[in-house]
């Protein structure tokens, strides 16, 4: 339901500077370790999550992906113990969740779900204030924080405060859900298909805004999705779960696309994995040979253009090269089909791997 007078925000995105809340330490992020975690639901033979071990470094987005029923939600809900762990433990900054006080554990973790689950009887401001109230913050501090968060997620800090969830669009509700999860500045965020129920255009905007936001706040995020494109876009690392909750591969998106661990992963990421890899780099990331002095009749593309888009630009015009230009339109270098092919060749990936270690 879109209320009258509501103007969709353009691509302007989120303001990147927020006055820090003086009482909250900024940029705190937790390390999360799944340590041989298994979940067997009562009355079931097969585990829903099977001996899952992985380490998520602080400040990274780890995407859990896999087919429906693969155990993604189960794995996520064991972190805040909405589901009890059958075997193993999950360590947050070294502390096992099984030994922590339940309320305290949950209040320290931001939780975002696909259906959002806003409280229909509370205003936007009251929804966002839920955890700060539980933590006993004083009124002034809560009011400040609510305003700050509304701005952070791209809502109007004055007009949207007093609205009820039923008066918001789907995208706005998910923004409020995100603000509510971020309210007490938790070092860890759990997001279960947060953009899954949102139309493609709004979803893309929310993804972009979240990535920009994440660059600023640097949380550890466990992000569940079943959409490989979303996983490649959002994840610093991607964990692929197969049926039965077994970990098939855990690596960077680039490494998974370049070298799928097995047939299951290869099929899952799709035959166009080569093209998907091209979305991960921009032409500005490449070392480019100088452009020809006169490039008036050449195609041009900005340095922020993805390799995939650059390829598409060339193919659409039947050319095999284009000139990379900076924001002022000055030629910076020459991008050729060969250069793009080399950038995503297996040898290049191996080289990069070598350079990293």
């Amino acid at each position, binding site marked *: 339901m879109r209320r009258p007078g509501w103007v969709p925000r353009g691509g302007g995105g989120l303001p990147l500077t927020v006055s820090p809340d003086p009482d909250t330490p900024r940029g705190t992020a937790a390390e999360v370790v799944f340590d041989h975690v298994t979940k067997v639901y009562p009355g079931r033979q097969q585990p829903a999550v099977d001996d899952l071990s992985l380490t998520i470094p602080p400040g990274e987005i780890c995407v859990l992906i896999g087919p429906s029923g693969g155990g993604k939600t189960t794995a996520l809900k064991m972190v*805040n113990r*909405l589901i009890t762990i059958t075997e193993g433990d999950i360590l947050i900054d070294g502390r096992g969740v099984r030994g922590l006080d*339940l*309320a*305290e*554990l*949950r*209040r320290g*973790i931001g*939780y975002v*779900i696909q*259906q*959002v*689950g*806003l*409280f*229909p*009887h*509370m205003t936007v401001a009251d929804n966002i204030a*839920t*955890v700060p109230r*539980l933590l006993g913050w004083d009124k002034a501090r809560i009011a400040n924080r609510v305003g700050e968060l509304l701005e952070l997620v791209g809502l109007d800090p004055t007009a949207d405060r007093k609205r*009820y969830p*039923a*008066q918001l669009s789907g995208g706005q509700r998910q923004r409020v*859900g995100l603000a*509510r999860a971020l309210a007490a500045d938790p070092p860890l965020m*759990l997001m279960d298909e947060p953009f899954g129920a949102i139309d493609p255009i709004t979803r893309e905007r929310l993804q972009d805004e979240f990535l920009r936001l994440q660059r600023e706040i640097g949380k550890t995020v466990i992000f569940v999705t079943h959409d490989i494109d979303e996983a490649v876009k959002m994840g610093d690392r991607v964990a692929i779960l197969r049926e039965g909750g077994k970990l098939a591969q855990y690596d960077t998106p680039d490494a998974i696309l370049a070298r799928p661990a097995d047939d299951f992963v290869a099929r899952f990421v799709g035959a166009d994995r080569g093209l998907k890899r091209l979305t991960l780099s921009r032409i500005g990331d490449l070392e480019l040979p100088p452009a020809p002095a006169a490039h008036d009749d050449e195609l041009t593309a900005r340095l922020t253009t993805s390799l995939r888009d650059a390829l598409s630009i060339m193919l659409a015009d039947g050319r095999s090269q284009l000139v990379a230009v900076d924001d002022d339109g000055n030629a910076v270098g020459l991008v050729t089909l060969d250069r793009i092919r080399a950038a995503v060749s297996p040898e290049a990936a191996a080289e990069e791997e070598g350079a990293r270690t």
Partner: protein
Amino acid sequence: MIASLAAVVIPKFGQDSCARANKTFCWDWFRQHWGSTFEPRLVEHIKLTAIAVGIGFVIAFSAALLAHRQRWFETPFSVVSGLLYTIPSLALFEILVPITGLTVTTAEVALVSYTLLILFRNTLTGLRGVRDEVLVAARGMGLTGRQVLWRVELPLAMPAIFAGLRIATVTIISLTTVAAFVVDQGLGAPILNAINVDFKTEFIAAGLLAVALALVADLVLVVTQRVSTPWARRAAG
């Protein structure tokens, strides 16, 4: 057993020509007897109703909370309150009089028993109607079971609870007139009088007052609900 029949009051017609002619409704006579008859009867009626709905709500609400947590409790309470609901009110008075006599207690026990089913059902339906994702989000944020109940489930059950209160209140206002068979109280007393008397005004006035009371009570509850659950209105609009 019928107390008020023993104390039939013949209306004092006085100088009122309308009353002496026994026209359908004598406005002057009504006004003259407002302070002596109708106002006290109306106040008694309101008290009887309020006590019945109040006690009924406390019992039904507690039972609904229990049934919300312990599913097994739903069936026995539904069966018992459903049975009570189906017993004709006069029969229930007959059953109770040998135990509690011709007292207000008898009247209230009977009236309370008619509120239980409606209030129990509506409260439980309201609590169960809270959407799953709302509860998951609440627990995921670290609300305790008690906090989820008082801050999320009960506020969201309010529209259903109010709907139950409205039905129960209107029903009890109507039933309380029958309570005049056991106690000489409420608007039922003048109505009962009128059975033995040819004079129509007293009977019509008391009946209309009961109807008006039901309408006003319903209106008060609607307004209270609107004010206390502003979100529900906006969700609908």
